[in-house]
């Protein structure tokens, strides 16, 4: 298949932010995740847990609470005291509203979705009415002494429980007055701790309030009498989160999940005391240790326990008793890396641009003159150089960035500003020059792409439009804007341009891929919509075949000139992909092509990269998909027989980026998990072996 020199890059010092909140929406089977830097991500659990949308973070917007309300509207609240609603179509913030109660620690939407409660630093609980396009302050509940850290509605919407410091209050929603105040024992293993913080509460329909607190307790309270019913001491450290199974789907709340600061997630279930008896009891059934650090947030989907925390992993643990068939849902998921590209590459100059939350880094790859055989590490004649560290302006996170193939342009965008820089290389010096006077319509971009010859810039904005800009020496000219189809407001997240510069493909999260003719500046065709979101796009040289990867691991090839799927694509759809190929659990994030071998498609996900050779027969389920062993002394005939179209290498992982620099050179960007863990705060030390 070929021999490559591989630039193996591990200096991309990317550390994901810790997870602060998760919120599960049962209606759309989507999961909203907020991180400590304010980023909010939306995962589509029906589409193989693909991260289909994200809202960039903001330095001053620490999200403390996240909830879905009124169907599929997403709200967050944070320490800046604002309640934010997100526009899930345009992928921006719809509005932010100050609750005037100081930092907001907790938020809960009423069971019918029409009201929103927030708990504030000043001890107030505020009720907001959700109107079709905004939220409106309704009234305050009785003010409490200290901050409200957790809130939960009774499923009937008549009462709420609010966790504060050292006590839990139960409010009557109608009157807004506290009817019970349940004091929590500060004692912790016989030692009186300073304060007992109620990190989470959950109100069950039978009136039971479950609380989790900083003393490691899970407690059951009777809200009618305000008395403690049961106490489970489950950890030596804080229990930081609780989530119960959704009442709207399960007739009875029979399971909930809590997460502790030791990284353990405990599953509690309501089980019969003895078989055949009607008396039921909450029992701690399963402990899961998938985290090393604090589990800050948990969620409970009908079939899985979802947890996230400081160690940045989002863990989706299916409940085996709820999973009926052994399929994609039955596997444990650990999502660490974003499902989008953070690296771009200037092939000709051998430059890599790394995107961080608040800065960009430009590196030049090294070189070698030596040659070797498979597996050798070649001596470097020149090491990689860190050329540039570009800090962003303002508190907003970078949404996307790109470097032009010639290496002389860098563009990036935040939620409100677009930046374009011109780079001049004089020997070892770099001259960075910002292109000023950006047009007003170029305010924020979801995706940026340069044409192969670096003369055009394509910018996908969040109103569904794609701008085409011609780049000149130090200046630019707006050529055209491809407007979205009338009636759709979906923004485009992925762009691909053909190497000859004639075709531009753009894709949103759910609708089909649009192909534009750049020469004639008009829509050429639309690839039929598919059930699963697009994860990567690319147009092959010469043939102008558009290769599309979807989150269900399907790969399509669509001929742009012919406006139809290619023969190869039809064949593979007819035969089906290998079952192991379909069972991979990370999406394909990048596709590229070999300039000299038109039959080859290069693609990669986080744990493998693959060269598909369209000339070879497709593998069926009986053949070995992964063939890691190089056939040393096998005869050519056997090799030919076992050879199939998918050549997979799992040597580099976790793989964030892979591209072909030239015919015989690859660049791979790895980010070993150990390096990420090394940059996290130390986890809570646990005693082992009775020491």
């Amino acid at each position: 298949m070929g021999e490559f020199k591989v630039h193996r890059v591990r200096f991309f010092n990317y550390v994901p932010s810790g997870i602060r909140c998760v919120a599960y929406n049962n209606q759309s089977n989507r999961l909203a995740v907020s991180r400590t830097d304010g980023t909010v991500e939306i995962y589509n659990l029906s589409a193989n847990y693909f991260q289909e949308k994200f809202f960039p973070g903001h330095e001053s917007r620490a999200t403390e609470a996240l909830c879905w309300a009124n169907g599929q509207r997403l709200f967050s609240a944070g320490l800046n005291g604002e309640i934010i609603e997100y526009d899930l179509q345009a992928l921006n913030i719809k509005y932010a509203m100050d609750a005037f109660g100081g930092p907001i620690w907790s938020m809960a939407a009423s069971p019918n979705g029409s009201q929103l409660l927030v708990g504030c630093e000043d001890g107030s609980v505020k009720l907001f009415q959700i109107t079709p396009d905004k939220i409106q302050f309704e009234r305050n509940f009785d003010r409490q002494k200290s901050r409200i850290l957790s809130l939960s509605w009774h499923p009937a919407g008549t009462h709420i429980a609010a966790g504060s410091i050292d006590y839990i209050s139960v409010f009557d929603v109608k009157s807004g007055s506290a009817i019970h105040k349940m004091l929590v024992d500060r004692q912790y293993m016989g030692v009186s701790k300073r304060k007992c913080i109620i990190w989470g509460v959950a109100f069950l329909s039978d009136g039971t309030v479950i609380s989790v607190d900083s003393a490691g307790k899970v407690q059951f309270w009777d809200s009618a009498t305000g008395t403690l019913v049961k106490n489970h001491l489950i950890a030596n450290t804080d229990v930081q989160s609780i989530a119960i199974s959704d009442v709207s789907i399960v007739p009875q709340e029979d399971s909930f999940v809590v997460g502790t600061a030791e990284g353990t997630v405990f599953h509690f279930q309501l089980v019969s005391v003895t078989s055949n008896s009607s008396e039921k009891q909450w029992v701690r059934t399963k402990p899961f240790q998938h985290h090393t650090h604090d589990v800050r947030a948990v969620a409970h989907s009908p079939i899985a326990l979802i947890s996230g925390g400081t160690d940045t992993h989002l863990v989706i643990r299916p409940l085996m008793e709820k999973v009926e068939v052994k399929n994609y849902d039955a596997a444990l998921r650990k999502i660490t890396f974003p499902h989008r590209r953070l690296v771009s590459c200037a092939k000709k100059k051998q430059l890599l641009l790394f995107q961080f939350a608040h800065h960009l880094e430009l590196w030049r790859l090294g070189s070698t003159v030596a040659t070797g055989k498979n597996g050798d590490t070649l001596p470097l004649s020149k090491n990689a150089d860190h050329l540039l560290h570009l800090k962003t302006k303002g508190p907003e996170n970078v949404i996307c960035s790109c470097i032009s193939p010639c290496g002389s342009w860098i563009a990036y965008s935040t939620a409100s500003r677009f930046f374009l820089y011109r780079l001049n290389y004089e020997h070892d010096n770099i001259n960075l020059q910002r292109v000023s006077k950006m047009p007003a319509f170029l305010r924020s971009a979801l995706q940026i792409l340069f044409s192969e010859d670096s003369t055009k810039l394509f910018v996908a904005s969040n109103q569904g439009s794609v701008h085409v800009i011609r780049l000149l020496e130090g200046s630019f000219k707006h050529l055209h804007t491809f407007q979205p189809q009338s009636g759709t407001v979906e923004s485009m997240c992925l762009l691909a341009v053909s190497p000859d510069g004639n075709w531009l493909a753009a894709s949103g999260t759910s609708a089909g891929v649009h192909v534009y003719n750049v020469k004639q500046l008009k829509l050429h065709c639309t690839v039929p919509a598919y059930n699963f979101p697009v994860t990567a796009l690319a147009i092959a040289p010469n043939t102008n075949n558009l290769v599309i990867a979807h989150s269900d691991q399907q790969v399509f090839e669509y001929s742009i000139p012919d406006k139809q799927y290619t023969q190869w694509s039809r064949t593979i759809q007819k035969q089906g992909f290998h079952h192991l190929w379909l069972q991979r659990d990370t999406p394909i994030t990048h596709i590229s092509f070999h300039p000299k071998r038109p039959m080859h498609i290069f693609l990669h996900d986080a744990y493998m990269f693959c060269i598909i050779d369209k000339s070879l027969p497709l593998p069926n389920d009986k053949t070995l998909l992964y063939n890691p062993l190089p056939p040393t002394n096998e005869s050519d005939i056997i090799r030919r027989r076992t050879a199939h179209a998918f050549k997979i290498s799992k040597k580099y992982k976790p793989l964030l980026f892979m591209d072909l620099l030239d015919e015989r050179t690859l660049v791979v960007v790895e980010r070993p998990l150990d390096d990420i863990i090394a940059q996290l705060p130390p986890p809570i030390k646990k005693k082992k072996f009775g020491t």
Partner: protein
Amino acid sequence: MAALEEGFTLTAVPLGSGPDGPLGVEQSDKTDQFLVTDSGRTVILYKVSDQKPLGSWSVKQGQIITCPAVCNFQTGEYIVVHDNKVLRIWNNEDVNLDKVFKATLSAEVYRIHSIQGTEPVVLFKEGAIRGLEALLAEPQQKIETVISDEEVIKWTKFFMVFRHAVLIFITEKHGNYFAYVQKFNSRILSKYTLLLGQEEKSVTQSFSTSVHRKFISLMSLSSDGCVYETLIPVHPSDPEKNQRVVRSLLLKSVVSGNARSGVALTILDQDHVAVLGPPLSASKECLSIWNTKFQTLQTSKELPQGTSGQLWYHGENLFMLHGKFLTVIPYKCEVSSLAGALGKLKHSQDPDIHAMTHFVNWETSQGYGLGSQNSEQSKRILRRRKIEVSVQLEVPPSTQLLAAIQKDSEKHIEVELRKFLAVKRTPDFHTIIGDVVIGLLGRYKAEPSFYPRNCLMQLIQTRVLSYSLCPGLMEFALEKTDVQILQLCLQQFPDIPESVTCACLKIFLSIGDDSLQETDINMESVSDYTATIQDGEIEEQTEILQNGFSPEEDNCKNCAQELIEKPQAATEESTSCPVTGKRAALLNAILHSAYSETFLLPHLKDIPAQHITLFLQYLYFLYLKCSENATMTLPGIHPPTLNQIMDWICLLLDANFTVVVMIPEAKRLLLSLYKFVKSQISICSELNKIEVSFRELQKLNQEKTNRELYSIEVLELF
């Protein structure tokens, strides 16, 4: 460890008493029932466990009770004094105190005392003492004055010392304290002046006494917050003379020095006292339990609503006034044990009898058997009414069995025993078994012809016995050289002292083969290899690989030579068992028993050298047998493990090396052991080398995978 349990309020309504609290709380003749006399007009009888009053009696308006009601334990009647001089006696059936027996005395009564086992005594304010019977015979008799003017009785107590009643009372005059001790057997009143130390002019606020052998220990809580102890001899050398006793500091600063009131002291038992009062000047009042032996605070309980400085202790209950309520706090002092102190005592008792704990409370299990409780009650003299027999005992099989042991024939005992073992096991099964064994041994001691061997075997096989449950059993078997019982004991008992283990070993090694031949010994542990021993036809193994290491390679030429000289003999010796099968079985029982090295070593030194050599040879033989197979185990059902064998070899050599090294026949054995150790050492060093090189390889491997941040590699895809 002493512990205060959760207290409870005795009276639901506040006592209608004045500020001083109740006059007294006294025990009644039934356990769990107490007479509470408030400082007004009422006496109430409470049942504490039910927290409810059983009866209440009041004197007429205008009269006032001046002395707490007591119970006459001999008759079950209650006695109270009102208006200082009027004595009333009544019982449970009486309703109105006006209509009960009344006696007007000629002098003012300070206190009536009544304790179990003697008639009540009346202490008059002038210090005279009368028995109740004598007083009632002539109520108006003249009462003499004992103490001087201005001397006031502060405190008094009545108790039994060696079956004789003793009354002690403390008087105070101008800040000086005197103790009077009246003994009723000798009618001698001794007077002691209590000397305070030089240090202070403190006021003593509370007293309590207990009896220690020949001394009455008088403890006093002083206003400086310290507890002092004064020892008053029970039998004074010169009773007539006024003697002086000095008090010594017992506990320092148990209560705050400047506590105005509400301090009290009560002795709970030999080592524990209860102190009522604020521990610090600003803090709330507390009930604390102190251990006087170790000067430690055992436990304490805060009484936030304040107390009156009165504390009574009756039958495991502490009574005190808490706020306006009379509160009872049960007090428990468990017998402390080393196991408890080390935290190894099992607290939750498993109901499963097989897992029954072998820890036994010696206080309750043996002496105070069933049926001994009644004896004292039956002696009681009744005055007006009968006492219902409260405890009815049906005869359990265990008592039947114990009775049978005392007199019946061996055959009959066996039958009884079988009957007993057939019934369901009760929680105290193991203690009964222990009692049965002790009973059997006791009878054997009385009539040496009685030898219940079968019974004992059966009892040992119940698997509930331990050495400490029947301490005499193994000594008995040793005396009889009954190796079968000894083997059984070694197999079953978890707690055999090392000295006994060693004595068994001595017997097992010295007993003659012919006497062993007759015994019936469990051969389970040796069954497999004894066959080969008996046959004697062992194929010659010219080189025994010692743990995979061949002795030929040994570079210690000197010692190797000697072995090479007679290789034939060496192999022969090492492959044939040096002891007979039965003895081997006995020795295996020793190998299996638990021991602690430090305690075993001194006893091992007493074993004669010949026996040591024999045992060593046997152990060496076992070792060689072990090393014959790959798993390093011996065949058989319950064979000794390699570790046990090795530990015993080391122990024997440690204890007896200087002796063994002098014996010529042990020389070869020692040499082979030495060679064995040497080969072990070299194997270990080789293994270490391998481990280190493996680690290096691993490190290299890690370095390969964990490369630097940037590299250019060659990859070929096929």
